[in-house]
């Protein structure tokens, strides 16, 4: 087990290097340092000297991957890629292109993201599993049919529509909660309740449907028939056997997203003005702040890999049949 985890950790390094290289190339093909400088320096009265200065100051005046002018090893090390990417492995994110300390901003913004994402996940999971069980209990009846149709209806509504509609109805017409914004501490509650509800409702359709499939599949298995044949009540069968076994695929889906909760939700956060990491990323894309984007990509990758390791570990914990090599 420990050896496995260590091995997976070592795998993570080439993945992170790959991720870094890929995003780096993508963003430098698109966005030359000149463009970045011009973006940051504003529109009026920008001189070539100012751009050259900016690049020099930020260390963007070097070659991307290979510095033919430098001696020896520095041919590779004295480049934008090495200088800007190696530090990430020590979680030193450096400064954003507008000069702010990225690590500080990430720390500041992580909590609001979690305040939104954790309730959405937990409540969503509870609601979805409950609904899915309900539909599974009433399988092959009109409840099942209409349940599925309801799911499809919910699924085919764009999340943007939920957000616009929710804000309009609950915030504007009923005036129950603030339309948007955020505050620290206990006050956060009144700000996140609407986005949480919207996040949960937005996920009900696909979640319930997916879990229903899993439950039905489990119900169709032989051991369930055996249990029934023994005369067990449906309650025992469903909760003791089906739910437990269905947890494997459910866990696959959940555990992997767990660490990514830190990254926040892109659209909901910017719509509700929640200063989390999701809106941070969107802003960085819009303002083409390469340093932040790179930091977020790196962070996302690290969290994702943690999620994968957790998933595999949870496989063994729930289902001893799966062996970790």
């Amino acid at each position, binding site marked *: 087990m420990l050896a496995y985890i260590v091995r997976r950790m070592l795998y993570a390094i080439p993945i992170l290097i790959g991720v870094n290289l890929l995003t780096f190339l993508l963003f430098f093909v698109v966005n030359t340092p000149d463009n970045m400088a011009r973006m940051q320096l504003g529109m009026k009265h920008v001189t070539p000297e100012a751009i050259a200065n900016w690049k020099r100051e930020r260390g963007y005046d070097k070659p991307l991957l290979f510095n033919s002018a430098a001696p020896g090893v520095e041919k590779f090390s004295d480049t934008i890629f090495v200088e800007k990417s190696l530090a990430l492995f020590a979680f030193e994110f450096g400064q954003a292109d507008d*000069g702010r300390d990225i690590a500080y901003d990430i720390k500041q913004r992580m909590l609001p993201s979690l305040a939104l994402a954790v309730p959405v996940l937990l409540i969503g999971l509870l609601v979805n599993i409950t609904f899915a069980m309900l539909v599974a209990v009433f399988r092959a009846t009109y409840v099942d049919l209409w349940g599925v149709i309801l799911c499809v209806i919910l699924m085919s509504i764009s999340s943007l529509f939920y957000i616009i509609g929710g*804000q309009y109805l609950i915030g*504007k017409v009923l*005036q129950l909660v*603030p339309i948007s914004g955020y505050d620290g501490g206990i006050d956060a509650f009144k700000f996140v309740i609407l986005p949480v509800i919207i996040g949960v409702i937005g996920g009900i359709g696909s979640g319930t449907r997916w879990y229903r499939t899993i439950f039905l599949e489990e119900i169709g298995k032989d051991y369930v028939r055996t249990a*029934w044949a023994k*005369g067990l009540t*449906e309650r025992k069968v469903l909760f003791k056997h089906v739910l437990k076994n269905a947890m494997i695929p459910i866990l696959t889906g959940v555990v992997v997203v767990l660490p990514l909760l830190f990254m926040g939700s892109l659209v909901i956060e910017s*719509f509700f003005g929640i*200063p989390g990491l999701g809106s941070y990323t969107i802003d960085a894309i819009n303002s083409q702040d390469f340093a932040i984007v790179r930091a977020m990509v790196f962070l996302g990758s690290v969290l994702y890999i943690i999620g994968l390791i957790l998933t595999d570990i949870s496989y063994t914990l729930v289902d001893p049949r799966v062996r970790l090599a």
Partner: protein
Amino acid sequence: MTNRIFRWGRAAVAGLLIIALGACGEGPWNNPHSAAEERGNVLFSSFSERPKHLDPARSYSSNEYAFIGQIYEPPLQYHYLKRPYELIPLSAASLPEARYYDAADQPLPADAAAEAVAYTVYEVHIRPGMHYQPHPALAVNAAGEGVYFKLSREQVAAANTLADFPEHGSREVTAADFVHQIKRLVHPKLHSPIVGLMSEYITGMQAYQASVQKAYEDAVARDGKNAFIDLSRYPLEGVEVVDDYTYRIKIRGVYPQFVYWLSMPFFSPMPPEADRFYGQPGMAEKNLTLDWYPLGSGPYMLTVNNPNREMVLEKNPRFHGELYPSEGEEQDAKNGLLADAGKALPLIDKAVYSLEKESIPYWNKFLQGYYDASGVSSDSFDQAVRVGAQGEASLTDDMRKKGIALKTTVAASTFYMGFNMLDSVVGGLNERARKLRQAVSIAIDYEEYISIFANGRGLPAQGPLPPGIFGNVSGRAGINPYVYDWVGDAARRKSIDTARRLLAEAGYPNGADAQTGAPLLLNLDITAGGPDDKARLNWFRKQLQKINVELNIRNTDYNRFQDKMLKGNAQIFMWGWNADYPDPENFLFLLYGPNAKAKSQGENAANYDNPAFNRLFNRMKNMPNGPARQAVIDEMVEIARYDAPWIWGFNPKDFRLYHAWYKNAQPNLMANNTLKYLRIDPVLRAEKQNEWNQPVLWPLGLVAGVLLLSVLPALALYRRRLHTPVKKRAAAAASGA
């Protein structure tokens, strides 16, 4: 199982009750601000993106000026109420006078010809007794040494915000601080946007920049990236300190517009201690820079700086004091704008700016009373504003019932479409291209554009100068005769037939090249992506289809677009300009040949270069406002209209809405330090907020009821099913079938 469900249910209901009680405690549920602040003498506003620069040497955009305009005090300011805009002293004791000298350093009379003047000297006397806001950089110990000037790496690493330096100090503002700030403009690390422009005018600036640049590079080579250089060690020839309260600026030749620059934060005082404090190693990495924590002498200081959520300005306890103006325009007294005349500024204790990226939530919160003022977006326009039979705007009944007030002004800005004059199809000063441009100018119906996309909030521009700027002519004499006719008592756009005829004369009868028969295809270079842009782009294509010309949209991202503009590869593009100062020079220089964007990276985006226009521009820029200047301007405008390098577009009208508790609101397009004049009536605000924000609860009850009704029978059924062994049920099903 059911028991467990009920237990959960009970817990949930109890939780909800607690929450509801907590929320009910103070004021409306949907209040996005903290209740304590709400009752204070506090203004609530917003910012839509985090300001990039708060350093007065760098900052150059309106969203940044909203903050630093209140914090820093340049020598001059615009009078809050008087129109046309008038400069009055702010941190200066009086308006500086220009003194002219010839090449032999001999003084010249004030009316000397511009050619004879070698340089101009402005002597600025500053107001004595001004103090900086309390700030750690100014904290001194008993020995008079700065407390925080020798921080260790660890001390810096432990700090995250300015509040982590508890000791504060202040001192009087001196003339040397003004000079220090001017020197800062050339600091290679600051990239001041006006350094290029200023070094053309302030004598010795170029040499100074070179020496500072070299000193900085040496320092970087010695101490690494965060090297600190002491600007006072390098003399700047054109700027000198005379005494504690006087300094002089020497300007090459004549540049009457220079005094306008003195009203911008670029020229506000900055104590050298600030640079010393923030220049310590490690500070910049922790966001501890002048860009994030200003140090000014103005009425307000920035006390909370969390650009991820909110920024707060609070009264500066060391503010030197200023009085509300006691004179204004005629109707100002009637409108209550002089009610506070003679009172000590600032009138508001605190201003809270929250991050608000989307326009819709902002608008809704404004209607709920949580923001004190708002603009009017195109989509909320019909809700807020009614346009009368003569086109005059008034508020809708809904708004009036809420006590909201509306103020409109024509902005000193212009949105135009430019033709790239270097382009082989639309560019050039030849007859063919000129007629093509004129035809397109007629075809693009800006009246319709304004009515569809701006709800009529704008005036079709007749030339480069917007209304309110000297040189603009209104009425019949002011129309652009190449696009408009004067019919009855209004300007009317020429007919499409005229445009078609011009197009044919240009060599494209019916939109096709007369020689080859190839259809004419024009390109619009644009950066689009907003939800509204599709409609807008379709509209532009529709306009040119009227004269059988196909318009191709070349949509790119912002950087790519800038690149095209710089290289002169665009064909037709959309551009805008906001006045830096209320002088026609600030608009006409956008068409001045030597300012061409592709050639010299200037602001002449169309790359228009007409020698006659250039000659007149050089004459016009140094003239005082008066009939002689008007005549030159008229001549220039006529040349530009004929050449049609721009489709003149329109001058937007600003619509602002104010709540009844928001007093002394007067739009001022030039001043950026207007917060100090405003007054809030917090009692009225709290009252109205309560009145407007009563939560509507019955739908919640309804939803709960419906849920309960639908769940109960299912629950009963569920219970029965759960406890029946399956075998029995299967048998029942079999017998039933």
